[in-house]
């Protein structure tokens, strides 16, 4: 059984016009973010090949509409947690791409001073609490910030991203139960890209419509076309409203597809080139671009100008990362591991 027959995904890009009242500036911004993620990550792949970037590199290419649409529904003061495939969410949340590229280069100007790398982008000032690398385990942290906000009577909503593969482990069920039990403002966004690494959805999950897993908790849930940025945004806005109004959490299942391997090392034995090619023909960025032009909201020349600007920004990010310093050894002393000063007497490692 091919993935396509197992998982029908709604057609994208067939809406005759933008949703009523959609500001052209917003459409342009969504498009800008999607292209920035795409170009940033193409550059990441290139830099990985040149060994400027090490470790695991999980690209979001193909899934941009999901992250951009979902994050666009959030306000300042809201929170984001995500998994190791975190570049898209970070860029959508407005993290500085210079700092992101520097993080990948392991430089001190990186978001995490070069200590985290690709899987651990974070910016506390934007309440982007980070990319986490233990599948499904960060969902509980997200429920925790929602609890903290609720107890402090703050209006924040926490959005947490994870894959289809994260919905089989115990943490997923613990998180959904806690969130629904205590009516916490969490929007769970499952990015169903049909594979957990190389294991197809129907091989890893007894229920392949992930949103139905919320039924066990009486939780509101919706399956949406995550490849259509506007559809994704609308669903996220509904979910965020619901959560913010105190009615409890929502599970969104965003149907999407990654065009690249699971990580840069993946040789993709588990799917055919043809499958991927067929999917690429519905590239969410291309589809959205055609929509924008067809709707006459934006001129082709403006799009091209935007795309050039983005290329320049990405190139500048590489220059910035290249020119930056490496982190200092203070980070590998015992004092670098704690927020509070500590003494170890006698010291270890001859510190």
């Amino acid at each position: 059984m091919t993935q396509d027959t197992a998982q029908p995904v709604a057609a994208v890009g067939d809406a005759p016009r933008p949703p009523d009242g959609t500001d052209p500036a917003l459409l342009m911004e969504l498009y800008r973010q999607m292209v920035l993620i795409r170009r940033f990550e193409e550059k990441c792949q290139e830099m990985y090949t040149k060994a400027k970037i090490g470790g695991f590199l999980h690209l979001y290419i193909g899934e941009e509409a999901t992250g951009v649409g979902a994050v666009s529904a959030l306000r300042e003061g809201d929170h984001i947690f995500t998994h190791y495939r975190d570049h898209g969410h970070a860029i959508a949340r407005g993290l500085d791409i210079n700092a992101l590229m520097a993080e990948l280069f392991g430089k001190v100007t990186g978001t995490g001073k070069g200590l985290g790398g690709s899987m651990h982008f974070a910016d506390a000032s934007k309440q982007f609490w980070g990319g986490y690398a233990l599948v499904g385990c960060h969902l509980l942290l997200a429920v925790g910030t929602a609890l903290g906000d609720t107890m402090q009577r703050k209006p924040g909503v926490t959005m947490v991203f994870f894959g289809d593969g994260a919905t089989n482990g115990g943490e997923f069920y613990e998180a959904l139960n806690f969130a629904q039990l205590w009516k916490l403002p969490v929007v769970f966004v499952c990015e169903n890209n049909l594979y957990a690494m190389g294991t197809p959805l129907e091989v890893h999950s007894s229920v392949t419509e992930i949103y139905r897993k919320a039924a066990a908790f009486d939780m509101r849930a919706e399956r949406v076309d995550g490849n259509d940025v506007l559809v994704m945004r609308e669903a996220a806005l509904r979910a965020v409203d619901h959560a913010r109004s105190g009615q409890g959490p929502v599970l969104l299942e965003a149907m999407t597809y990654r065009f690249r391997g699971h990580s840069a090392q993946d040789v993709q034995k588990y799917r055919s080139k043809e499958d991927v090619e067929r999917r690429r023909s519905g590239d969410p960025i291309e589809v959205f671009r055609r929509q924008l032009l067809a709707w006459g909201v934006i001129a082709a020349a403006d799009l091209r100008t935007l795309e050039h600007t983005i290329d320049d920004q990405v190139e500048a990010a590489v220059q910035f990362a290249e020119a930056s310093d490496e982190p200092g050894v203070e980070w590998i002393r015992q004092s670098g591991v704690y927020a509070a000063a500590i003494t170890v007497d006698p010291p270890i490692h001859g510190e």
Partner: protein
Amino acid sequence: MPVITVREALRQALHELMQDERVFIIGEDIGHYGSTYGVTAGFLEQYGAERIRDAPIAEAGIVGLAIGAALVGMRPIAEIMSVNFSLLAFDQLINHAAKIYSMFGGQMHVPMVLRTTNGWTQLSATHSQSFDVMFAHVPGLKVVAPATPYDMKGLLRASVADPDPVIFIEHTLMYTVKGEVPDEPYEVPIGRSALVREGRHATVVTYSRMVHLSLQAAEVLSREGIEVEIVDLRTLRPLDMSLAIESFKRTGRGVVVTEDWQSFGTSAEIAARLYEYGFDYLDAPITRVNFREVPMPYSKNLELKTVITVDRIANAIRDALK
């Protein structure tokens, strides 16, 4: 000074801490049930269900939520009923609590406390373990295991005030241990050991409940003319060996007493540091007293042969003096 139990000392500290609106307690059976060991009995009635959160039996969740809440300004005190159940939360503790500060380059920190308890009394193999070494192994965590009511109160306050994640280890067989505790609030600093008995013949390095058994062994030996010095580490990470090493340099003989398995256990690390820093003063091999290395048996007969007794400690000290 009033003399109270460890349980009372912990309750005092928690009552004081609850005056801070940011503090809340989350754990299994801490509220409606009245708390497994009585520490938070009556808290639900006094502080309400929002701050005394009876949690589902979901240890990863309890710890994960506490970490998340700590990130946004709360001061959560998570309780895991027995340290044996903390295994289900190890991922949250090690991969999240211990990592968030440094992995993200110091942008955020996790001021949470996990209270949990070691102990045994015919609870057999799965309910009688100690994982002190597993917590203390991990950079990014702080681990305290006090022995006296005074230190329980002072260290619990210090743990909640601390900006880093702290594992606070109690002991089921210590809740009724009594000691002097001032009524007023005070803190005992994390990462400072204490000299609890002076002596010139041997140095016993220990912590938690074993401090009390070591003191009893010292009294027995005192009648034989042997005077042992006892150091209570109080904190396992960051580890303060300064007093222990200083004492060892005077006595030349060391005994390490820890209530866990010997191989790769806390006593191995403590003994290694004594050797590293006291080698030139060594008059005899350092001896160690630990649990026998087996899953804890149920039968009282076998259990008592598996755990540490005053006799076993006294014998180990005699051995160190040979």
